[in-house]
């Protein structure tokens, strides 16, 4: 049977690749969130819409990010 965790790219162990992917996504997420937060606070006309949008953004993405982080440290 194929064991895909045995594939090694660039000589890195599989767990390190998973962690790299996680850090990459966290990095993109942090930059994107900062820009999103700035734009909604600077250019939105109504505070209520800003609150709803940012609230929805964090409630949908943060749990996924937490799940990813937990899984990244459990995958060997």
């Amino acid at each position: 049977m194929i064991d895909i965790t045995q594939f090694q790219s660039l000589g890195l162990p599989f767990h390190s690749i998973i962690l790299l992917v996680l850090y990459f996504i966290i990095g993109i997420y942090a930059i994107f969130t900062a820009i999103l937060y700035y734009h909604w606070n600077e250019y939105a006309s109504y505070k209520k819409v800003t609150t709803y949008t940012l609230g929805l953004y964090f409630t949908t993405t943060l749990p996924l990010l937490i799940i990813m982080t937990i899984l990244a440290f459990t995958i060997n």
Partner: protein
Amino acid sequence: MLFEKIQLDAEEVVLKTVRKHWFIIVTELFGVFSMFLFPFFILFIVAIFPNLLDSLNLNLAHYTALISFAIAGWSILTLMSGFMIWTHYYLDHWIITDRRIILVDQVAFFNRNVSMFRLERLQDIKFSIDGVIPTFLNFGSLKAETAGNSESNFSSTGLPDPRGLQAIIQKAMDDRISAIHMHPEELI
């Protein structure tokens, strides 16, 4: 907030705020939603036809954590795309007041411009509705030319009811010019 930045005049009245037509955001969000569902669709296909993976001798049950990790990552990226589209849609808009047109436009995700055009400086305003769907749903582009160099011209696509919008701007422009003729000190 935007209105603190713009600082409308004391007696300035907002006549209309316009965003792109709903069809624009629905089509864009539909694409993102399809991408969001893509891994679930693949899993669904694999669940219906388990023999597909027999040739690879691959048992997905052993990789539940890895698959969940990949799906979570994919979901975050597609959700970010969705919020980017919503941001682009909601924050880019035209504010038409009885004295000027304020155009909030996103040049890039890092860059958003707020431009203002005095109605008395407007020279021409044109609209166009091209295509079957825009004609059916009544949306199109609007181009305004101002006195001065061509850099101060502005245009936007996918605006709802461009004909009505043109009429509102034209009327506001005529009213503004009449007001200035009666009270020239307002021009200062």
